[in-house]
């Protein structure tokens, strides 16, 4: 990606990588192998060139599965590619064609996510001339492997099926990947009836870190997916880059966002029309208002700027609808629910996406005159925008509906207007009639934030090859920040303060994650004890464990799973939560500080200091929670504790739900 690594401090604004960069410290992720469960990969992309890499490690067991597509070749960068399509075939009930019997990405999504996690450096990358820079993955010298599990939907079917996903997990583990990145989501389910949860539990047991997207079902609460505690679950937020374009009308200038590759020529204003007033003879005004394909009357829109309302069809399809009817430009206005959450899309004609409030003013002007005129300016790339990061409105939020004792999502990372490699088999909008072909494209979603964190996990794996998946996850979580670039609390897209239900432990901070000081480690047995505490029977767990297993006689309280964040659910009587930290730095004495108490709750850490005489030592502590008598009962409240030795800040978010 371009810009997001600068935003996270890995390179300077001029693209240079300083000596202290996490990339330099962690050797750019060399020796790490990142597997991606997605729509495949476009192997010819420059993001998978292997110019800087030596031979493939001897312990790699993967293959390049190209029996139906001999043009698909792996190399020292893209060390493996497989496809799994039997679950898809079973679901759609149709014979598969050769494009579905190859790991070649005909969608673009898998190429984008894999390049974001581990793509090689490509200078001069840009999307439609915007966001120019050097595109790199988070672990640019890691090896990567593609596991294709997603295919074109048929008659509204889903894209990726559990039977294929489970097969891909099994193959990735056996092949020898170190990090699995999976930007797929479905409604949360019981852990042992969820292919991603099962596959990732086996992966973690084998020492493989699993990173998944939190999903795009936000901003409603309780929408987060991939919530198993052994998964690193990633929300999405903005960087400090925007692509503003303007609508000029009636002495008004409204700012929106656009990535249109073309723009209106000349200085003259264009006639404007509301799409609702331009319905084709056989189509309803409602269809026309949202600019559905074929819903516009060419006689009414020819040569004009057409104002379309969000919803009903993909955003990028509306420009195509206007273009087919002969319109000169398109203004996409938000509906009320979308507010001022505007997105820079690669529209096929000059276009801009503006807020609901600006849309109301624009439509009021159009309705007030028979000669409404306006202009759309060309978008430009702007860096250093504030506030940043801001949580994306689509990013799914907690609480965790399967296990309210575990805070999800775990962290946030860039997921808005991310520029990365794209498939040569798909247009940038993904729509079948978009015949443009681009090497790089922008995408927005938790699918894009997930591989950023996978790349960071690759760096940690390179620097600390003996760390467990839980230790890597802890390092990423406890060093994440709740502050934005101006050291103010991270905001939601509505510019209200965000909470850990949006961003978990905070925004990833790669440099700090390489040297976290302390880690909250969790073994496979700890996870089994946790599952026992949730009521899973020992027979099931014994089958998982592949060996005799007995639930603890003194059952673990689920709150006591050694998770890097702490959630206390239905607090009434005072409660104590146990945690265990391992020193991964030099000898040091750490002191605990309750940097923020959840409203109405008193928090005490015991002991308040932990002395470590050597690396690897483990110490226990307890965090006690008590409802303050004088305080009114509240719903969810948020706080944080920090352990510090003066050099490291090991922060854990606190989430408390009081009873009543």
């Amino acid at each position, binding site marked *: 990606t371009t810009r997001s690594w600068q935003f996270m401090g890995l390179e300077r604004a001029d693209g240079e990588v300083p000596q202290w960069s996490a990339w330099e410290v962690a050797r750019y992720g060399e020796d790490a192998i990142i597997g991606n469960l997605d729509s495949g990969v476009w192997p010819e992309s420059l993001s998978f060139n292997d110019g800087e890499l030596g031979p493939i490690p001897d312990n790699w067991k993967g293959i390049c599965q190209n029996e139906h597509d001999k043009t698909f070749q792996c190399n020292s960068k893209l060390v493996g590619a497989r496809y799994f399509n039997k679950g898809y075939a*079973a679901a759609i*009930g149709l014979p598969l064609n050769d494009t579905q019997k190859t790991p070649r990405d005909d969608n673009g999504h898998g190429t984008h996510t894999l390049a974001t996690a581990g793509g090689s450096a490509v200078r001069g990358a840009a999307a439609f001339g915007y966001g120019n820079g050097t595109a790199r993955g988070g672990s640019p010298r890691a090896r990567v492997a593609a596991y294709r599990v997603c295919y074109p939907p048929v008659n509204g079917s889903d894209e990726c099926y559990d039977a294929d996903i489970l097969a891909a997990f099994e193959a990735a583990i056996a092949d020898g990947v170190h990090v699995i990145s999976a930007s797929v989501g479905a409604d949360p389910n019981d852990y042992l009836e969820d292919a991603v949860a099962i596959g990732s539990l086996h992966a973690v047991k084998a020492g493989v870190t699993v990173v998944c997207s939190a999903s795009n079902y936000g901003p409603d609460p309780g929408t987060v997916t991939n919530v198993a505690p052994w998964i690193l679950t990633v929300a999405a937020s903005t960087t400090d880059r925007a692509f503003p374009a303007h609508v000029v009308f009636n002495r008004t200038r409204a700012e929106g966002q656009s990535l249109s590759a073309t723009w209106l020529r000349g200085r003259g204003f264009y006639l404007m029309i509301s799409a609702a007033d331009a319905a084709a003879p056989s189509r309803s005004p409602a269809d026309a208002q949202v600019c559905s394909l074929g819903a516009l009357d060419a006689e009414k829109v020819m040569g004009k700027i057409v104002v379309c309302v969000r919803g009903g069809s993909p955003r990028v399809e509306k420009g195509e609808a206007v273009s087919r009817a002969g319109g000169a430009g398109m203004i996409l206005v938000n509906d009320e629910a979308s507010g001022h959450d505007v997105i820079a899309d690669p529209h096929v004609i000059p276009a801009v996406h503006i807020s609901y409030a600006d849309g109301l003013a624009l439509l009021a002007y159009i309705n007030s005159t028979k000669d409404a005129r306006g202009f759309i300016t060309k978008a430009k790339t702007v860096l250093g925008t504030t506030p940043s990061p801001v949580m994306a409105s689509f990013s799914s939020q907690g609480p965790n509906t399967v296990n309210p004792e575990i805070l999800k999502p775990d962290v946030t990372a860039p997921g808005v207007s991310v520029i990365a490699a794209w498939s040569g088999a798909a247009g940038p909008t993904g729509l079948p009639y978009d015949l443009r072909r681009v090497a790089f494209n922008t995408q927005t979603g938790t699918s894009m934030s997930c591989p950023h964190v996978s790349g960071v996990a690759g760096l940690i794996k390179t620097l600390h090859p003996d760390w467990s998946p839980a230790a890597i996850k802890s390092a990423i979580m406890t060093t994440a920040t709740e502050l934005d670039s101006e050291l103010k609390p991270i905001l939601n897209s509505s510019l209200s303060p965000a909470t850990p239900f949006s961003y978990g432990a905070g925004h990833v901070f790669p440099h700090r994650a390489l040297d976290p000081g302390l880690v909250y480690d969790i073994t496979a047995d700890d996870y089994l004890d946790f599952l026992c505490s949730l009521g899973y029977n020992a027979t099931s767990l014994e089958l998982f464990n592949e060996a005799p297993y007995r639930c603890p006689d003194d059952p673990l309280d689920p709150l006591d799973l050694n998770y890097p964040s702490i959630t206390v659910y239905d607090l009434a009587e005072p409660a104590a939560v146990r945690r265990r930290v391992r020193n991964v730095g030099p000898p040091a004495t750490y002191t605990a500080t309750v940097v923020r108490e959840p409203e109405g709750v008193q928090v005490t850490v015991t002991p308040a200091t932990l002395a470590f005489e050597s690396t690897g030592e483990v110490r226990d502590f307890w965090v006690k929670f008590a409802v303050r008598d004088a305080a009114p009962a509240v719903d969810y409240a948020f706080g944080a504790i920090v352990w510090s030795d003066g050099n490291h800040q090991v922060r854990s978010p606190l989430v408390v739900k009081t009873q009543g």
Partner: protein
Amino acid sequence: PALAATKPSYIVYLGGVGVSPEEAHRTAAESHYDLLGSVLGDREKARDAIFYSYMRNINGFAAGLEPEEAAAVAEHPAVVSVFPNRGRRLH
């Protein structure tokens, strides 16, 4: 696919693999046919129904089954869980 067009598909999760991957590879698929065959009453029918045998780290299989067959498989003592071959979306 012809089978799947008429039957929903399920994942039968049996836990982990307790032997070496090579050993597991040789034996797991056969044991999956045995298990499903014992429920369906026909080992060949089981062989036709199973389209994935997971056998390297994960022990289990995916098969086209009638809902009542899936429910019967779930009762088998060696089975941890049986769940539909759910679809997911890219995000």
